[in-house]
């Protein structure tokens, strides 16, 4: 799928979403006291104008796509799937960190996340990647728990008890 098609699909999706949200606003409960500026008043303006703008972008994208295909016989180059793959891998790791953050607490999840993420990314010496994770985790724990007095997740069960001993 080319960049132009993606552009058109994205703006088309925004257009469809705008219409859908406009229809949801249309079904909001009404209050006679504010009939002229009711609950649906502002959302309808926003989603109406958004539908208009995204509709125009979609038309523009489709026209450009057709013109380019007519001129060159093929459309613009496709998206960089390797980049999307790298981003998705990091995204999945962040989601896993989020899950672990709540379940096993800040210390262990952060330690593990920093190690895995650092070794996933290509640049930097190995020793730095090994040392950075524990140093940064301890530093952040001290700053949050002892200097600023802000909460850090403690995890559940045995991890909760462990965290109570540390911060």
């Amino acid at each position, binding site marked *: 799928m080319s960049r132009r098609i*993606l*552009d058109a699909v*994205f*703006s088309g999706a*925004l257009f469809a979403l*705008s219409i859908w*949200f406009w229809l*949801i*606003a249309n079904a909001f*409960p009404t209050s006679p006291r*504010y009939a*002229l*500026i*009711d*609950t649906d*008043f*502002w*959302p309808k303006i*926003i*989603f109406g104008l*958004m539908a208009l*703008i*995204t509709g*125009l*972008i979609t038309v523009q994208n489709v026209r450009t796509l057709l013109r380019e295909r007519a001129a060159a016989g093929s459309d613009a180059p496709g998206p*960089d799937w*390797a*980049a999307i793959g*790298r*981003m998705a891998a*990091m*995204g999945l790791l*962040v*989601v896993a*960190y*989020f899950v672990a*953050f*709540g379940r096993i607490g*800040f210390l262990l999840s*952060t330690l593990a*996340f*920093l190690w895995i*993420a*650092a070794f996933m*990314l*290509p*640049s*930097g010496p190995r020793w*730095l*990647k090994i040392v*950075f994770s524990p140093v*940064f985790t301890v530093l*952040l724990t001290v700053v*949050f728990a002892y200097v*600023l*007095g*802000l*909460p*850090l*997740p403690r995890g559940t069960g045995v991890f909760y008890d462990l965290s109570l001993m540390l911060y």
Partner: protein
Amino acid sequence: MSAYMDALTYIVGSPVNLFFILFSVVWGIVFGSVPGLTGIVGVALLIPFTYAFESEQSLLLLGGVYVGATFGGSISAILFNTPGSPEAACTALDGYPMAKKGQAGRALGIALASSALGGIFGTLVLMLLAPPMAQFALQFGPPEYFALAILGITAIASIGGGSILKGLAAGFIGLAVATVGLDPITGVGRYTFGNNMLLTGISFVPVIIGTFALAEVLTRVGEGRNSKEAITDVSTKLPSLKELGSMKGTLGRSSVLGAIIGALPGVGATTASFISYSEAVRWSRHPERFGTGEPEGIAAPESANNSAVGGSMIPLLALGIPGSATTAVMLGGLTIHGIVPGPLLMEQNTRLVYSVFISMMLANVLMLFFGVRAARYFALVLTVPYAVVGPAIVVMCMTGVYGLNGNMVDIAVMLSFGVVGVVLKAMRYPVASFIIGLVLGPIAETSLRQGLMISGYSYAEFASRPITALLLGLSLVSLIYGFWGRWKAARADREAEAAARAAE
């Protein structure tokens, strides 16, 4: 004057406050100098930490970061040919060629001196104009605030570069997200889909941290860029008074332009630096030297973008309307302290406002000191591999957002908007417009509805108030100007294409 003395006593009287200014300038320079991090990310990541401090101290921190980051961008622009922040893009045009000639220290010195002079000028303008503007704004009613919000949204879409329609669409996505939660007038839940957590709306701070900081890390990981070689063996050499004197016209003009452009709602330091650079070329006796390492090519954008910092604080403090994407993020920082910027803030909390003025002045002076003494160390930051910087930012995003309320829902919001930020960037919809829309949405909605109630639901009466009409007119002009600029650019492209075909 007593308000200034009170604020000065407050700042100087506590070593913690002075430390905060110092820390924020260093933090800002670091974030500004690392390409991709930018001052907005620096401010956004610091917001949760400010939760533990007094509101005055929070603003000292955020203001200092803004000042430091605006200069910090020039370090990587000069030594790395990669602007640390968008507002330093122009600085690279002449800064890097000068560095390649073996004059990196001189280029940094010019950038530093121009940044400090521009920053001090912008702060003076802020000190002089914000109080009378706030006084004037006391006459503003809901229609004027609505018109100001519209001006902010249309200005950023039109002048921000790129497609105006995409800029407007991004602004409207922000406005749309701001509609989630209880209706401010009728109290009916909107777009909550049965989830009670959404009744209070979508928390602002997780959204900005997600769309700016997390999205930046994910995008950078996707790009898989390896660090380029940076010139790190450098010592800053400030320009002599004679050299500064030879650039006084450029410095003065750019500082004035920066303060004016910065003060326009929705337009920021990046626009200021580009316009100042083009004006410097126009007014120069040797325009052909620009792009080859011309000192005025560094002085113009640097004085303008730092002057715009003070300028962009004027609408934030005096009107409660952010003057730039960074001040929009700062607005989020103020809300977690329960501070509502605007004319009443200038009346009721003078110490806070005047502390900001003084701290920004001090931050500019400190920036000069740090730039001279520590530029080589800031340059070393550029050599830290992204394999540790990127994951560390993710950890700070998660920890900072959790620290706000101690709940995991905020983190889920941050992660979701991280994805939104990545998608918007990938599709070339400006994230800054999205944030401005999100910030201005509630102001615009409430003002419009209250204004209509006051005017007896008459749109004509609503729009015929002189200031409202003027601001709405300016919004229209900025849109027309933007569309005209795009039309001109498209025509130039078509002509170039036709010329190339004819040549073939």
